[in-house]
């Protein structure tokens, strides 16, 4: 397996050094692994801190900037960051208005952010937390660690980020973040396994003629493996899986997300099929985002996320954002 790296141990630090060089509008603490918007803390503004394993770029560091995250904590590849990083990030962005931790539902992320919240509160920082768990591929939460947090993370961070930018108080930013998560559902498929630098070979074995339906963002499976399907069939399966779980009455935000190794040519084609089936099912699409936003290293495949929005959520989604990975209205 060929990768554009030096050694596996320095992959995250090397990426952060390169990110710092590309984005002088961010403060990148390579040693402590915290990415902070340069003007933080912004007086009177709630801080938004997110984080998780590396390997999902541009999530999360790529979403730091005005209108979205105040700071992000990248962990090792596919490994939750440690509480020290989160506390450091919270301290860097807290202006006294409190900090919202945006946590994806994975055991490691939950445990480390819980510990970080306790430590940050000991330092006098007011902390609220929102758990993102949008993945409908996980059907039986009683016998698993619960629904995983995937594509909805982008919508939660964007909309809560806009509210915080307006100066809304912590309770309100937290409530909005929760609302976005509750109104979001995702489903992903993998056409190939991903390769972590530490292992150097694919993390699971997916034969050439098969795909994995309901895949998570670490390549972990969800539902079943089948013979390869067409873009049209995958769109039908994915959207139907989501609509079996939610019946949006309002228009939706649509994210057609690449897992890292699927080109835009395929993603746009897939988007056409997703839009077709949504139209057939009577779901109106208010905004569409197509691209690699919540990736799994070099995995081929895509995920679909729908977020049901009212006028207020749509207004906040449309608000200006200026980050490496998401930028409009500025």
């Amino acid at each position: 397996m060929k990768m554009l790296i030096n050694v596996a141990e320095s992959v995250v630090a090397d990426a952060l050094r390169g990110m710092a060089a590309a984005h002088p509008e961010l403060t990148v603490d390579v040693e402590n692994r915290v990415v902070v918007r340069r003007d933080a803390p912004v007086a009177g503004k709630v801080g938004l801190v997110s984080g998780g394993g590396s390997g999902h770029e541009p999530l999360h560091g790529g979403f730091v900037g005005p209108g979205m995250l105040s700071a992000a904590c990248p962990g090792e590849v596919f490994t939750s960051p440690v509480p020290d990083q989160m506390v450091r990030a919270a301290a860097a962005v807290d202006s006294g208005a409190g900090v919202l931790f945006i946590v994806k539902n994975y055991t490691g992320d939950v445990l480390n952010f819980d510990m970080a919240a306790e430590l940050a509160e000991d330092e006098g920082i007011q902390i609220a937390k929102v758990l993102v768990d949008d993945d409908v591929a996980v059907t039986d939460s009683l016998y698993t660690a619960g629904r995983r947090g995937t594509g909805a993370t982008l919508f939660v961070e964007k909309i809560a980020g806009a509210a915080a930018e307006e100066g809304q108080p912590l309770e309100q930013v937290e409530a909005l973040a929760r609302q976005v998560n509750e109104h979001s559902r995702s489903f992903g498929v993998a056409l190939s396994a991903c390769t972590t630098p530490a292992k150097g070979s694919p993390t699971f074995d997916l034969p050439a003629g098969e795909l994995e339906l309901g895949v998570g963002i670490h390549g972990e499976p969800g539902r079943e493996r089948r013979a390869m399907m067409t873009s049209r069939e995958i769109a039908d399966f994915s959207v139907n899986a989501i609509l079996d779980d939610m019946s949006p009455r309002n228009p939706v935000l649509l994210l057609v997300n690449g897992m890292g190794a699927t080109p835009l040519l395929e993603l746009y084609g897939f988007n056409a099929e997703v839009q077709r089936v949504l139209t057939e099912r009577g779901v109106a699409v208010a905004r569409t985002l197509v691209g690699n936003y919540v990736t799994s290293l070099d995995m081929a495949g895509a995920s679909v996320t729908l977020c049901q929005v009212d006028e207020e959520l749509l207004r906040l989604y449309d608000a200006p954002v200026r980050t490496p990975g998401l930028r409009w209205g500025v």
Partner: protein
Amino acid sequence: MLDADFFRRWMTATAASVEREAERLTALDSPIGDADHGSNLRRGFAAVTAVLEKEAPDTPGAVLVLAGRQLISTVGGASGPLYGTLLRRTGKALGDAAEVSEAQLGDALRAGVDAVMTLGGAAPGDKTMIDALVPAVDALAESFAAARVAAEEGASATTPLQARKGRASYLGERSIGHQDPGATSAALLIAALAATADPEAADV
């Protein structure tokens, strides 16, 4: 009686064992997890060894609390908080005595394991580190060697189980047939304890 030096040697022996077995732990974590258990624990226990040398805590409790805090600060994932809590809570239960008996260590370790179960929400049979730790603590009343055997048997016994906690839980039935990496590393921790208590009997 066991003093601070005994606990330091236990941690150092664990670090050496994790270093040796890191690739095996990562290989076990590959089909059912995300292929990082060995490298994460290796990083954490290397940091534990370093901090124990630097700060030289002088009671058994202080050794474990410091080691646990270091794991929380360096490992990440679920293993960091879970192993960190295990050692921290065991250390806290030992208090500030300069020496502790084997029975006291057994009681403290049980408190540590209980804290891990509360934090992670896992029970025996969920295919986690608990499946090695609970039988080990039960057997510790008999001897360190018995605890080692019980932990290793507990780790092996996770193979036919379906995971209900952690990332392997998403595999459902496909997690069956793979030994749990967390239970495997927990057995290394207990084996290192047995080897520290009786260096001649064990070849850890």
